[in-house]
């Protein structure tokens, strides 16, 4: 009994910590924001790189958030999340080929992604979930290869082109050219994030999902269908992944089966930077990774675009070694 009470208290404390990040983290974030603002006012190159970074960071955020949703619900990382996103982007491509307009295809794809994610969880993940982390991770790795093979099989490995959702025009803000595309990417991702947040915060379904993720046994006792909540969680993650894929495609100018492979690594780095448990952390982490990659590659001659992936690897490693709980995560306390 005492231990149950203790853990409930710890849970509340942890929630508090999540809402208000510790002092050092707040300083880091505010400092970073001021640095970017001053930089943008000083130099148009800096501003251009920052905007580019924010746009690609939005894509990382969306995929990172998908990873976080899955991790919170079942404490595994879905290695197939990126490939799943790539697959749904191909579905959108196909729908457009069949005559749908971009935005019709966009929303139809989100619905298909939801069904796909849910079905995959029920059919493939649920049977191995209780076994071990390694077993579940291996299944997602198998899924990674399977999806890649299926996409290559159906659509082939050559580049596909989709119409641009936001046109090719651009804004001019004080001499800095900002394509509509970048603004659109950030706006769409933020809108989706806000919707997911509202779902979790204001709906009964969201409450059930939070309960199932936080205290599965207790949630089951009060009548939450924990299994079903986990499946819905996978569905939502697949939707966020689809958004990431659809927004990544125009920025890379073409669609190919490798669309999401490096983005997945950046999303990993983003999710870990934010704390694997924290949705807000995933968004902040994604934007941070996006902007810092853009600035570092733009300004540090020693780090060319070939070293972007190793750079993300370094971020991942350093965060895990120095602060494994990330910027917003809570420290994991393990009982023997």
């Amino acid at each position, binding site marked *: 009994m005492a231990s149950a009470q203790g853990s409930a208290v710890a849970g509340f404390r942890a929630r508090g910590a999540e809402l208000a990040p510790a002092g050092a983290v707040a300083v880091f974030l505010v400092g970073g924001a001021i640095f970017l603002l001053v930089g943008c006012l000083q130099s148009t190159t800096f501003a251009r790189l920052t905007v580019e970074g924010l746009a690609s960071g939005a894509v990382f955020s969306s995929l990172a958030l998908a990873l976080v949703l899955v991790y919170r619900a079942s404490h595994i990382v879905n290695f197939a999340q990126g490939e799943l996103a790539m697959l749904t982007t191909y579905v959108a491509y196909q729908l457009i080929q069949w005559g749908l307009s971009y935005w019709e295809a966009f929303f139809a794809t989100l619905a298909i992604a939801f069904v796909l994610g849910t079905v995959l969880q029920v059919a493939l993940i649920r049977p191995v979930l209780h076994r071990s982390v390694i077993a579940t991770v291996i299944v997602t790795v198998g899924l990674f290869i399977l999806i890649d*093979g299926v996409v290559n099989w159906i659509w082939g490995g050559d580049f596909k082109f989709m119409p641009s959702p936001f046109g090719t025009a651009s804004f001019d803000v004080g001499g800095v050219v900002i394509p509509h595309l970048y603004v659109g990417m950030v706006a769409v991702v933020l809108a989706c994030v806000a919707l997911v947040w509202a779902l979790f915060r204001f709906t009964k379904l969201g409450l059930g999902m939070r309960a199932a993720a936080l205290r599965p046994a207790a949630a089951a006792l009060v009548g939450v269908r924990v299994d079903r909540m986990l499946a819905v969680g996978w569905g939502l993650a697949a939707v966020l992944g689809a958004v990431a894929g659809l927004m990544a495609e125009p920025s890379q100018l073409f669609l190919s089966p490798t669309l999401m492979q490096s983005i997945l690594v950046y999303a*990993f780095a983003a999710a870990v930077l934010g704390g694997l448990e924290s949705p807000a952390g995933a968004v902040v982490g994604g934007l941070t990774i996006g902007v810092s990659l853009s600035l570092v590659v733009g300004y540090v001659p020693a780090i060319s675009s070939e070293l972007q992936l190793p750079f993300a690897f370094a971020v991942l490693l350093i965060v895990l070694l120095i602060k494994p709980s990330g910027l917003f995560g809570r420290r994991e306390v393990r009982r023997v």
Partner: protein
Amino acid sequence: MRHLPALASLLVVAGVLVALPFILSDYHVSLVAQVGIFFIAVLGLNILTGYTGQISIGHGAFMAIGGYTTAVLSRDHHTNLVVTMLVAFAICFVVGLIVGLPALRLSGVYLALVTFALAVSIPQIPLQYSTFLGGSGGVQTSKTVSNLWIYAAAWTASAILFVLAWLILRGRTGRAFRAVRDSEIAAVASGVELPVYKTLAFGISAAYAGVAGSLFVLATNGFAQPSEFDVFLSLELLIGAAIAGLGSLWGILVGAAFVGLLPQVSSSVPVIGVEHGRDVVFGAAVVLVMLLLPDGFAGLLARLRALRNA
């Protein structure tokens, strides 16, 4: 007497492997050599994942390091190829220890993330330092070897490394590895030094992957290229280890054969076609194996044996 069945199966495998080159065509010898190469890598990964319980999705990275070691040494110094394999073993052992250091603080999914990122990052390094490591064109060894040479080298190395693994795993070290896998806390409480054994397991298994990488490069006409060591190689190794299951020679042989032969076999699968059949079959197979055979092929064998004895 206890070891008699194991010894017998070992002798059967060895006998068949010695006889095969006299029976098979040159092309088929190269296929079986490929199995030998993956046997080494899967064996190494089995020590880490199966025995010590540390997942790695990045063993293709160690194969890349081993492969480039061989290619660069041979190109620049005309080093004897067998010597380059030993150097690859040593270098990968050290790199494995270094990668194992963060593993001390990480476990489960975090380790999977780091090793995955390693697997994705390593192929970028030759692109960046292209004067030394040849860029996307790669590095070629100064001399190429016949398929029979690779066959002999791969299976001799397999035999040596198999015995080495057996020696490591049967004694104190192996017991410590298994204790770490089953419960880190219990292992520490029983006096197992966690840092030592976790990094050691990483080092050993990386060294095995390094030797496999050397042979892998020699088997592709001595070319070490970034594209050979993409993330799929790492995933395939993990899949091989999952199919192999734990602690069975036959399991590892089956896992290695699966990974080594599938690319060739699946290209003749009718419906799925030449190019992408491999990935579809790979992915479907691993998912099915995980769902139906939780302990891989070794677990299946154990179950069959239990049935027979019952």
